[in-house]
C-alpha cells in the first residue's frame, strides 16, 4: 500500500464535505425569524472542511503502521464481543453475560484459558458487587436460571 493514508483521508473528508453541503442545501424552512437559518452554519463548516482536506491531499503526513492479518480479526473480535454482550445483557442476566464476555476479551488479549476463565468469574462477581452494593445500580438478573431449577 503506497498511497499515504492521509491522502485517502483527504478524499474521504472531501466527499464528506460535499455530502454535508448537499444535505444542507436541501434544508428548507418555510418561515422563520432567524435571518441565518439552519443552512448557513453547516455550509460554512463544509467549506472549511473542504479547504482543510485539500491541504491534506497535497501535503499528507507520514503513513502510520496499520494493523493487518490476525490483528484485524482480533480487533473485529472485540467489537463483535461487545455487540453480543449488548444483545444478551438483559436476556442472559448480568453475571453469566459478563463472565462470558470477560473470558472472551481476556483470551483476545492473550490470556491462557484457565486465567481467562478465572478472571471472567472474578471480574463478573466483583463488578456485580461494586455496581449493586456500592453504587446502587440495578442490573438484569438471570431469571432463566431460577426458572430452570
Amino acid at each position, binding site marked *: 500500500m503506497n498511497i499515504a493514508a492521509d491522502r485517502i483521508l483527504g478524499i474521504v473528508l472531501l466527499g464528506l464535505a460535499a455530502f454535508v453541503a448537499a444535505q444542507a442545501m436541501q434544508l428548507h424552512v418555510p418561515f422563520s425569524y432567524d435571518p441565518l437559518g439552519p443552512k448557513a452554519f*453547516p455550509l460554512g463548516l463544509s467549506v472549511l472542511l473542504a479547504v482543510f482536506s485539500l491541504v491534506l491531499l497535497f501535503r499528507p503526513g507520514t503513513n502510520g503502521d496499520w494493523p493487518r492479518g490476525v490483528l484485524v480479526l482480533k*480487533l473485529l473480535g472485540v467489537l463483535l464481543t*461487545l455487540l453480543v454482550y449488548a444483545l444478551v445483557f438483559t436476556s442472559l442476566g448480568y453475571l453469566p453475560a459478563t463472565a462470558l464476555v470477560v473470558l472472551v*476479551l*481476556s483470551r483476545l*488479549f492473550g490470556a491462557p484459558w484457565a486465567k481467562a476463565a478465572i478472571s*471472567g468469574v472474578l471480574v463478573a462477581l466483583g*463488578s456485580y458487587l461494586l455496581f449493586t452494593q456500592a453504587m446502587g*445500580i440495578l442490573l438484569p438478573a438471570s431469571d432463566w436460571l431460577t426458572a430452570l431449577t
Partner: protein
Amino acid sequence: MWDFLAQGFAVALTPLNLGLAFLGALIGTLFGALPGIGPINGIAILMPLAYTMGLPAESSLILLAAIYTGSEYGGRMSSILLNVPGDAGAVFTTLDGNPLAKQGLAGPALGLSAVSSFIGATLAILGITLFAPLLARVAVMFGPAEFFALMVFAFASMSAMMGKDPLKTAIGAVLGVLVATIGVDSGTGVLRFTFGIPELYDGIDFIVLIIGLFAISEILLMLEHSHTSDDGGAMAPLGRVMVRLKEVLFCKWAILRSGLIGFVIGVLPGTGASVAGAVAYTTEKRLSDQKGTFGKGDMRGLSAPESANNAAAVGAFVPMLTLGIPGSGTTAVMLGALMLYNITPGPTMFTEHTAVAGGLIASLYLGNLMLLLLNLPLAGLFARVLTIPRWLLVPAIAILAFVGVFQLHSNLYAIFLMLIVGVMGYLLRKLGFSLAPIILGYVLGGLMEQNLRRALAISGGDSGILWQSGISIGLWIAAAMLIVLPWLLPWLWRKRNAASCSLSK
C-alpha cells in the same frame, strides 16, 4: 465577591462530598497510573457511571474533578517508571523522570513529582479563587456576538497550540462541530442530518460519543499494543521512598515559575496540560540548564513539567466555569457532564449555581491536599498497578464503560452507535488525530452556532454586529494572530537571518 468560597467549603465539607473527593482522588490516581490511560480517558470512562449513581450536580462534579486531578498525579507513574507517557501532557515528564528512575532514584522522583504537582495545582487553585469571579464579572457583559468571537478565538488557539499537527487539530474540531449539528435544529425545528432515523433526532448523545471515542478506541489500541509488544517493560526499582526537603528546595524556583506558566496556559481556552508541560520544560531548560544536565535526570527538569501540568489542568477550569468554554479536552468532557444536569456553565455560574462553582473550587483545595497525602507514602503501592497484566485490566475497563452506557441507554441502537464511533475514534487516532479537539468541537459547536444566529437575529441579519464591540474586535484580532503568527514568525526569522548573513559577507 468571594462569598462563594465560604459556601463552597460548606458544600465540600459535607461527609458525602468529602468522601467523594477522597474516592475520586484514589480512583483517579489508580486510573492515571494505568499505562496509556490519560486523564481524559479516565474521566470519559468513569463519567457515565458517576451520572448513573444519581448524585446531585455538585457532588458529581466534585467526584469528576477529583478523578481529573488524581489522574494527573497518577499519570506520572508510567512516565517515570516505564518511560510510557499516559497522555501528551506527560511526555515532558519522561525526559528527566525516567533517567532519574534509571539512576535508582525512582522513589524520590515520584515524591518530587507529587510535591511539584501539589504546589503547581495549589498556585492554580489560588489563581482560580482570585480571578474566576473577576472574569465572571467581565463575562456578564458578553453578548452573543462576543461569545461567537470568543469561540472563534478558542478554536484558533486550539489549532495553534494543541496536538502535534495543527491541520489535523483543525479538522478534528470541524468534525466535532459537524457532529453537534446532527438532530433537531433548536432555532427552527428543522431536522438536520438525521436521514430519517428517529434515534438521531436528539443528536448524537454525549455519553455514547465520549465512551465510543475514548473508551472503545482505547481498548482497540491497547489490543494492538498487546499484540505487537510484550506488556510491562522492565520497571525500575523504587529505591528510597521519600523525597528530601533539600531536593524540593533545589527545585523551588522551577516549581513556582512553571506553576505560574501552567496556570496562564491552562486558562487560555483550548490549550491544556500538554502545551503547559512543553512550555515550562523548555523555559526551565533555557533558564537553569547551565551544566547540560537536563534530559539526563535533572530534578528541575522533572518538577517543571509536573508543576505546570497540574497548574494547567486546574487553570482550565477558569474559562469553563466563567465563560462556559472549556480550557482543555478533559474540561470539555466535564462541561458536557454538567449539561446533563441542565447546568450550562457561564457568567452566571457564580451567582446562580454558587453551590456548584464554590463547591468545586473548595473541593479542589481539599482534593489536592488529599492527593499529596495519598501519593507521598503510597507511591510504591500505586506503582503496583503498572504490573497488572492487560488481559485482566482491559476487560474490566470494557465492563465499566459498557455498563455506564447501558444504564443510560438500554437499547441496541446506542451500543451500535457507540461501537461505530469507537472504530472512527480508533482510525482517527491511528491517523495522528488527537481526540480532545473533536470533543471540544462537539461541546462548543452547538453554542457557537446558537450565538452566531442569536447575534444576527438581534441585528436583523447585519453581520456588522459581530465586530462592533471592543471586546469582540480584540478577540478577532487575537484569533487572527494565533493563526497567522506560527506561519509568519519562522518566515520572518529566516528573512532576518538571511539578511544578517548577507550583511556579514
